[in-house]
């Protein structure tokens, strides 16, 4: 061989050198750098969130009020989207090109690498078609979840609704919620959110390069199961609720019925109501705005948020606390010349009748203003203490009946009503020398006093129980174990001895069951219902019709308050509604003459809208902010329903 033979080693050396370079690079990639395993896993692993079924809500007899229905959310990971048939996708999802771009932009702004919602709640039918083509749309995934469904379309304000979480919810939840999650936003859904929502599960699924699922990762070793939300048994009676909503159709107002022995709310109507199914599905946004802009304010939860001067029902309270304070007793007689003269004879609070000498029971029965004017004067002016202090005693006793503070119902947004403190009057009159004549309208539940329909029903429950109540509540049992919240089993005393209730109950019974009683026309055969009609002053128009009652007299089963706004006299509208509900609940029949029933079903007592009141809601520009403004406005309006007592006085004087 020649000297060129040596070149063999050079060549072999080059071969070895290249092999070493490759080895070094492989060592770096495979042994030193760990990130590639992660990248490979990111390629194939999809963390699928398994949404738990939200808890089902039943009525007190086990009828379903809210259940779940499957829908499908389309998610997108923007960075993975490449060369897709946008037109086909738009068609399948039912959106236009503009909508596609907008959704992609939104998803990209959340994260280009993480999946976020593209289109939500695609119904099962549309999903079937979409799924066939899904492999063509790289970067898109479907996640199924359930939405709420309301078989009877009732109790919207009671049950409330769920909505997508906003940034604030996410922040407050310490990361529990993620964009696209749903959270209870009102009603029971909101109050029992923690119980209803359940626990999310995670499933690690492998996908191939076309994003087609390829089975479970590591035999599900890293998967967690979703835990369904707790089921709730509500206190509501579905049939009674259905009837009440039917009766309240085309009327503004509330119906609240309570089982006195437990505080369970049997009926909770806020009218006008809406179909809770409107707050579900893809039309939800539009429906929501529609409801927000509805001039009759269906989103306003009247039973706990509307506040009215209590009127007659307060006379019941006044009679009870006066007896307890010892300023009157069952035999106390006042003289009614057709009104109560006060302020040294300068002012006069008119009574509807001229009763002459009248004792307590008929005073309740006939709702004698004069009687309670005197009673109030005794409570404030003749207790041997400064009237401001006497007033505070009086106020304390009144508050024990649930007036002027929230009752603590298991619903968000409960209003406290209104019951001013002594300081308020001291401040208003500049000194402490004021007396009963300065706020005499309080004696008959007018003036600076406001209660919610719930509070009124609760007063009836107290009377029915002869002295105590259980906190009114909507959920009577939680979950499999039928747990009841301890605060709902606590017996709360109204501070008046049971014996003092009898004359009051007698008066209420007579109002219904004695010929000539204000509610004689709505009495129920075989049931001794104790109740009264009432009228809540409305400075804006027709007065609100009120009826409150409990039944039967012995061992009462139901306490009820009915408000029909702008309906005028209570006996005409509120009375029959309450009567029908009570009879339905106790005897499962209605004996009230058919023509009265029809009159109520068919009545439209919605006030005529003032055309100048509000601009037509423009849906395009409506925003959350506007919505909240509207909400605030509506509250304000309701607050205006309080009548200043001087106005009442003036009204009586000029009449």
């Amino acid at each position: 061989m020649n000297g060129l033979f040596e070149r063999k080693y050079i060549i072999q050396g080059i071969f070895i050198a290249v092999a070493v370079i490759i080895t070094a690079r492989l060592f770096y990639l495979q042994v030193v750098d760990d990130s590639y395993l992660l990248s490979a896993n990111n390629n194939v692993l999809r963390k699928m969130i398994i949404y738990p079924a939200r808890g089902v809500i039943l009525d007190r007899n086990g009828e379903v009020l809210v259940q779940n229905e499957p829908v499908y959310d389309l998610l997108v990971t923007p960075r993975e989207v490449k060369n897709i048939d946008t037109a086909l996708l738009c068609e399948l999802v039912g959106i236009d090109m503009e909508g596609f771009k907008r959704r992609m932009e939104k998803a990209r702004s959340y994260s280009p690498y993480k999946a976020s919602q593209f289109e939500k709640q695609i119904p099962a039918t549309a999903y079937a078609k979409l799924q066939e083509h899904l492999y063509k749309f790289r970067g898109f995934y479907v996640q199924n979840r359930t939405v709420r469904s309301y078989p009877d379309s009732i109790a919207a304000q009671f049950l409330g609704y769920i909505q997508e979480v906003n940034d604030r919810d996410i922040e407050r939840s310490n990361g529990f919620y993620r964009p696209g999650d749903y959270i209870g936003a009102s009603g029971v859904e909101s109050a029992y959110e923690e119980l209803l929502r359940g626990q999310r599960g995670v499933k690690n699924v492998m996908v191939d390069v076309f994003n087609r699922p390829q089975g479970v990762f590591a035999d599900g070793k890293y998967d967690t199961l979703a835990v369904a939300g707790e089921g709730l048994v509500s206190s509501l009676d579905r049939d009674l609720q259905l009837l009440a909503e039917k009766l309240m159709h085309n009327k503004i107002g509330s119906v609240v019925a309570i089982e006195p022995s437990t505080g369970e709310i049997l009926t909770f109507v806020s009218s006008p109501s809406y179909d809770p199914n409107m707050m579900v599905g893809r039309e939800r946004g539009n429906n929501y705005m529609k409801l927000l802009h509805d001039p009759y304010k269906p989103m306003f939860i009247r039973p706990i948020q509307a506040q009215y001067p209590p009127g007659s029902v307060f006379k019941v309270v006044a009679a009870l606390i006066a007896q307890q304070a010892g300023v009157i007793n069952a035999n106390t007689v006042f003289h009614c010349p057709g009104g109560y003269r006060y302020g040294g004879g300068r002012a006069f609070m008119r009574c509807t009748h001229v009763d002459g000498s009248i004792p307590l029971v008929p005073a309740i029965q006939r709702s004698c203003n004069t009687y309670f004017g005197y009673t109030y004067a005794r409570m404030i002016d003749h207790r041997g203490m400064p009237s401001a202090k006497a007033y505070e005693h009086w106020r304390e006793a009144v508050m024990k009946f649930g007036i002027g503070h929230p009752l603590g119902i298991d619903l968000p947004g409960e209003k406290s009503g209104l019951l001013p403190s002594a300081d308020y009057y001291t401040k208003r009159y500049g000194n402490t020398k004021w007396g009963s004549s300065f706020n005499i309208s309080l004696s008959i539940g007018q003036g600076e006093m406001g209660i919610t329909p719930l509070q009124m029903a609760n007063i009836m429950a107290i009377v029915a129980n002869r002295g105590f109540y259980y906190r009114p509540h909507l959920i009577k049992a939680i979950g499999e174990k039928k747990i009841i919240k301890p605060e709902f089993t606590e017996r709360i005393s109204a501070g008046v001895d049971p014996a003092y209730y009898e004359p009051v109950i007698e008066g209420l019974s007579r109002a219904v069951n004695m010929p000539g009683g204000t509610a004689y026309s709505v009495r129920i055969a075989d049931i001794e219902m104790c109740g009264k009609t009432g009228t809540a002053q409305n400075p804006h128009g027709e007065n609100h019709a009120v009826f409150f009652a409990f039944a039967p007299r012995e061992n009462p089963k139901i306490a009820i308050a009915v408000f029909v706004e702008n309906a005028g006299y209570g006996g005409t509208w509120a009375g029959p509604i309450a009567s029908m509900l009570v009879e339905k609940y106790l005897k499962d029949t209605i004996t009230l003459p058919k023509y009265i029933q029809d009159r109520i079903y068919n009545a439209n007592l919605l006030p005529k809208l003032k055309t100048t009141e509000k601009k037509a809601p423009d849906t395009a520009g409506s925003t959350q902010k506007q919505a909240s403004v509207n909400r605030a406005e509506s509250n304000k309006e309701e607050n205006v329903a309080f009548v200043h007592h001087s106005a009442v006085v003036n009204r009586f004087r000029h009449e």
Partner: protein
Amino acid sequence: MSNPNRNRLFGGHVDWFTVLLWLLLCIIGWFNIHAAVFDPEYPGLFSMNTNYGKQSIYIFSAMIIALAILIVDAKFYSSAAPLLYALTIVLLVVVLAVGRNVGGNQSWIPMGNFRLQPSEFAKLATCLLLARYLSTQSNKTPTFRNLLVGASIALLPVVLVLLQRDTGSALVFFSLVFVFYREGYISGQWMLIGGLSILLFVLTLAFNQWPIIIALAIVTGFGIYIFRKRRKVIASLAVLFVIAATYVFCVEFVYQNVLQPHQRTRIDVVLGKIDDPRGEGYNLNQSIIAIGSGQFWGKGYLQGTQTKFNFVPEQSTDFIFCTIGEEWGFVGCMVIIGIYLTLLLRIVNIAERQRTAFARIYAYGVACILFFHFAINIGMTIGIVPIIGIPLPFLSYGGSSLWSFTILLFIMLKFDSNRKGIV
């Protein structure tokens, strides 16, 4: 080989060790092709329509071809070399006319169910003819004229393959430069200059021209300072600097103005100048992820998610090494690299033990071609060379490639088994 009688077969001493390495690579290839196209939904399915089904036919027929080659008289290959070469040249021209476009290259001739890739066989024919031509000149001093003729033999197919836009296959022929080096047509200095210019080329593309020029200037300045007493050296250093600088400018010019944008992008991706994991860099990125995620021991056979779920494109052909890297890890890669390196070194040793220049030169050609495929294919999957679509010998799926490499190797083995018979 300790027992000559045991190895007497096919009229000579077959190097069974090389045959064993060949068989090992084929079998490893089959298993990894199976893993690459494995569909977890139908794990038990064996079908002749799948790649691994076809590959088993290719391997079987490759064995028959290997047997046939060992039976045919060795003289045939040297005498038939010009004819074979002419034939492949004709085929390369034909493929330009009737070729089917597969993956951007117009390099396949459809033949029924089967496609023939003439460029695979062009390597063999070129090797044979080059060996024959250079061997006729081997007793004389190498001349520049001989080098030119030899180079033309190698460059003619390069031009034709380039016309098919199959850049990868065309580049393979440049690996024959080692043959010329071994036979003394190119000196070590020129090899070094060539190597350095490639280095300079890559550096220029990686860092742009100016930093390289400045670096060169500093090196030159340093050299001038050291050799400041010797004017001659200073002069040559200055000349060298001017040449190098000019070269760098030329490279930059070619890169900016001659290369197609997509070629530029590919180079940029490898050099890490652009990070584009979803676009041009997708193949490379997924390939590196596959190999890197195998870690030390690998994910296990059929457990590679990157390959199983088709994240790596061309995973049974050009990117078969990804499957190995992912499922067998660093250990598996070392085994493969070890087998290749053993094979390459063995071939060089076989070449050097040949008595005829023809057999030696041919064997070197085989080594060069296999080396180039090995280095470039694995290099591209791990991101140290641009993505050039050439197969990994014996491992990649494909009949043309397996057969042509088998023929290439077994002709060499035939010469080797006969080395004592031919004087």
